[in-house]
Structures are given as C-alpha cells and as structure tokens.
C-alpha cells in the first residue's frame, strides 16, 4: 500500500474531531489535561452537543481550555466553577453545562462550591483532574497530595501532622443525594482512555437526562510538577496514587449501587 492509499478516508482508523481546535496546546508533554480535553471534544462532537454546550474553565493549568474546544466557554474565578455553572444552568436549563477543574481548584479553594453544587444536584457534569499537585503555580501541595509526596511546599514530603491528610473529594460527593454518577478514572494507557471516555459519556448522558450532578475524577499525572519523565510519572501514579485513589464507579444511580465502597 502506498501513502495515497493509506490516507484514503475509507482506510482511516482515527481522525481528529473538528471540535478540537488547531491551537497548539500549552500543556507539557505527558500531561493528562490534553488527553481529557480531546475526550470531551470528541464526545461533544459525537453526541451533537456543540450548540448546547457551555464549558466552565477553572483557574489552574486548564484555564485556557477555551482555546482548544470549539464551544462557548466561560472562565471562572479560582474554585468557583461549580457556582458559575449553577448560575448558567439554573437560568438555562436546556443547555449542557460542565465544569473542568483541577484538584486545587475543586478540593481546596472551591471545596464549598463543589459540595453545595453536588448537594443541590445541579444538572451539570464535573470533570475533576486530580494530579495531586498545583500544576500552574509551580508544583505546590494540593489537598489531594498523598502522604510523603514531595512538592515545592512539602520539600520533605507531605507530613500529615503539619499538613493534614489528603482529601478524597470524590468519595465525599458520592455520599450526597444530589449526585447521580460518581466515578474515578485514569487516562495513562489506551484501555484507560477508552474507559475514561465511556465514563465521561455516561456523565454527559445523565446530564442530558436531567439526573443531577455527574462527577468524573481522572487520576492524572503532572510530570513537570512531579519532576519526572512522562513515562516515569505514569509508573509513579500507578504505584503510588492508585492504591490511595482506587479506580472505578463509586455511585451509579442507574445500577442503584450502594454509595462509595472505599
């Protein structure tokens, strides 16, 4: 087969969705944000939601999400994305509204907003990128930083006596009656990415069916912040983060599974 043959549309096995813009991403190579952006763009496209979708970008590395996915966007103040999304969806209940937040944004400064939005069962999807660190500001401790993990503000590793314990936000929101689907995923390998996409799709479907809040955590890497190569960061995540943040669905109101089992 020559090249011309290979690139024929009928032989194409993969294409970039048009909803992903051609802007060069500012994310570091190896960062999970880019992968999850791609999944969201693909899903919004495949599900025909471009005209309905309003994304709420956080303060954090994903602050520029609006440069990459071709839908209407609003950029929120640090931690306030769930409140912003609440305002949008309460006044525009027919829109598909989602927030896309990091762990500092969602679990620290915005802890009140996420708990209350989930508890009211706001009809939104929350995409929660948990990389255990403050990426954008240069690698400080996040509420999700696991014990003994080294960051720029925990140079000797997170000491729970000084810094308190890592916070499992996803477990918390799974307890709330307002959430309909709560899951923890990852995106470090092809199978993981496919699973993650299915989870996001389910979350979006639940929102379209007005089931309340869907919450998808993606355990992620921040290889720059962690000061590791992308490959090493994936290994480190699997070894150290997954035992503390086990993957899987915590709540699926469709299956009527009991809330949280961690």
């Amino acid at each position, binding site marked *: 087969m020559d090249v011309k043959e290979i690139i024929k549309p009928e032989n194409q096995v993969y294409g970039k969705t048009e909803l992903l813009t051609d802007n060069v991403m500012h994310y570091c190579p190896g960062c999970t944000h880019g992968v999850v952006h791609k999944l969201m763009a693909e899903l919004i496209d495949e599900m025909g939601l471009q005209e309905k979708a309003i994304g709420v970008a956080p303060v954090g590395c994903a602050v520029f999400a609006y440069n990459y996915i071709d839908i209407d966007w609003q950029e929120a*103040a640090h931690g306030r994305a769930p*409140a*912003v999304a609440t305002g949008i969806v309460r006044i525009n209940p027919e829109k598909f509204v989602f927030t896309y937040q990091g762990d500092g944004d969602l679990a620290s400064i915005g802890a009140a907003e996420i708990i209350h939005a989930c508890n009211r069962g706001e009809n939104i999807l929350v995409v929660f990128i948990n990389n255990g660190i403050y990426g954008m500001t240069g690698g400080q401790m996040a509420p999700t930083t696991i014990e003994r993990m080294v960051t720029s503000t925990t140079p000797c590793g997170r000491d729970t006596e000084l810094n308190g314990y890592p916070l499992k936000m996803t477990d918390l929101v799974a307890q709330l009656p307002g959430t309909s689907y709560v899951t923890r995923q990852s995106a470090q390998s092809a199978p993981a990415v496919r699973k993650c996409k299915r989870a996001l799709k389910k979350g979006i479907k639940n929102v379209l069916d007005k089931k309340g809040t869907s919450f998808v955590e993606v355990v992620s890497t921040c290889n720059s912040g962690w000061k590791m190569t992308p490959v090493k960061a994936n290994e480190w995540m699997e070894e150290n983060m997954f035992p503390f943040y086990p993957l899987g669905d915590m709540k699926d109101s469709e299956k009527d599974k009991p809330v949280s089992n961690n």
Partner: protein
Amino acid sequence: MGDLRLMKGNEVLAEAAIRCGCDGYFGYPITPQSEVMEMLMFREPWNETGMKVLQAESEVAAINMLYGAAATGKKVLTSSSSPGISLMAEGISYIAGAELPCLVINVQRGGPGLGTIQPSQADYSQAVKGGGHGDYKMIVLAPSSVQEMNDFVDLAFELAFKYRNPAMILTDGAIGQMMEKVELSDYKKRWTDEEVIEKWGSWATTGKPSSRERNVITSLELDSEKMEANNQRFQKKYRQMEAEEQRYETFQIEDAEYVLVAFGTSARVCQKSVEIAREKGLKVGLLRPISLFPFPKNIIGELAPKVKGFLSVEMNAGQMVEDIKLAVHEAGCTRRVEFFGRMGGIIPTPGEVVDALEQNFLKE
C-alpha cells in the same frame, strides 16, 4: 393611577425585579436586606414570569452564580449588605473584567468588620472606586426613597446592558426597612431565548451555532499589550458614563450660598435641614447625587463659583467629600468643602446638620 402600595424598601426591590423581567436572583441572607430574597421566595416568580430564585451557600457562590448567568445574556441580580459585598468583591471584579451586565444591590450596614446592622453609608468608596482588585468601575445608583428603590432596578439594568457593565444600587438599612407609598412599575416581559440571541448573541454564551465563532467570557489576557488595550477600552467606557450618565437632584439651590451635598438617607435628613436653615434666614440648598459613579461633578463645577461653600453630609467618616473636593478643584475653583457625618449606624438629625453648617461656615 398605577399600582399603589405601602411597602418596605427591600420588598420593593424584589417586586421591581420580578416586574422588570428579571431572569434570576442569587443571594445569601444578611441583615438588613434578607427581605429581598424572602419576598422573592414568597412570590414564587418561577410560576409567574419564569424568573428563577436560588439561595446560595455564600456570597462568594452567589456572585459567581450571577457571573455565570450574566454571561448567558440574561437579566440577573443579587443583593447583600456590607460584609457580604466584601466577599463578592472578587466576583464583581471578574464581572467587570469580562464586561458583563448585572445588578448588585448593597443595603449597607455599619462597619468595619461585622460592625452593626444599623444603616450606614460607609461603603461609598468601596462602591464608587471599584471595590475589588484592578481598575474598574461600577455604575452606582443611590435611591433615597422606596419609590426610587422601585425605579432604579429597571434603570440599573438599562445602564448595565447599555455599557455591558455591572451596576450597583447602593442603599442602606434605613431605606431597606422603611415602609412608604410606592407606585409599582408595570410588568415587562422576560426576554425569550431568541431575543437574547438576537440582542446579545455576539458575545453571550448561548451555545455555539455553526454560524458564529465560539464566545468566550473571560477576564484573562496574558499578553500585556492586549491587556492594556482591554483596560483602555474599559476606561473609555467609564469616561462615556461620566459624559452621559451623571444624575442628581437639587432642592432650593437657586439662591443658595451654602450647599449641602448628600445622597440616600442622609439626603432625606438634609432636606429638613434646608428648611430649618431657611427659617433661620440662611440661604442653604441641597444637591443630591443620584449616580455616585459617575459622580455628578459637572453640577458641582457649575455651583462652585456661585456659592460660599459645600458641606458633605454622610453616614461615614467622610468619603464622598473627597469627590466633591475633586470636582471643585477640576472646575478651577477654591471653594471650601467641609464634612459632617455620623458613623456606626447613626443617622444624623436635621438640627445637627444645621449646627455643623453654622460651626463650619458662620462662626467667627
């Protein structure tokens, strides 16, 4: 005759919001303005006009809900009192930076800190200078009667949308809690989604059709050249407000040698002070700024050469007095500008104001 009622100022704010075709209210309880949300919840406008009302978990959340809803081109408001407005400052700065129209109502109480629940005007500077971080301005309207509480809701929205800028009604616990006769406005229809797209589709997050580029509501611009250009655009807008929106009322100003300058509750007091002073044979008039930003400096500039002095009467330690001095200075005049105020939730009496006038201008 229209719809005449005897109502509390705070309740009128709620009623006016429903009637002017508002789409939503987000708020958090705080004295002395909780009646706004209580009235809205009692009225259940979602059954009548479709307006939504939500009690937020904090003022921080409320202002960010407003930010989200305002971005979609809808007519939305919040209300609070001084400590709550401080919490909203970050959000208001974002709203101004993203150039969104909305209405924020501050029914002021005395500060600093938790202060008192009694009326105050101590948030004047916070309101007219911006309040949050960065160079921005809000349109600030100061009602002095329950009737104006009704009228200014619609006016504030009109100006907010005209300039794509947050507007504030700056009132206080006295007017919020006071019952007065009021003629309520007629109902205006809420804009339909189609009307919103037609009016504001060029910038609002209404969902991206293939016919236009995506709309992005943000205050972020990391390129300094572009961020400066944004700031220049904002400043141009604020200058246009100054040129076109100065609002005020005068009382017995024609032959006045001394002018009391007061807004809101203190202006009501000063009206009586003018009468008392006139009975004593003093030629005193009152200038009542209605728009606090833009400050009605043109009229002060006009009056300055004709009068012997100004007395700013405020329920704070002397905030608006600075703007009066600036206005007199800008007019190239050297008239005396003095201040009298009470703080901590105390409303000055008319007699006290006349005494202060005499002390400042007529002794020795």
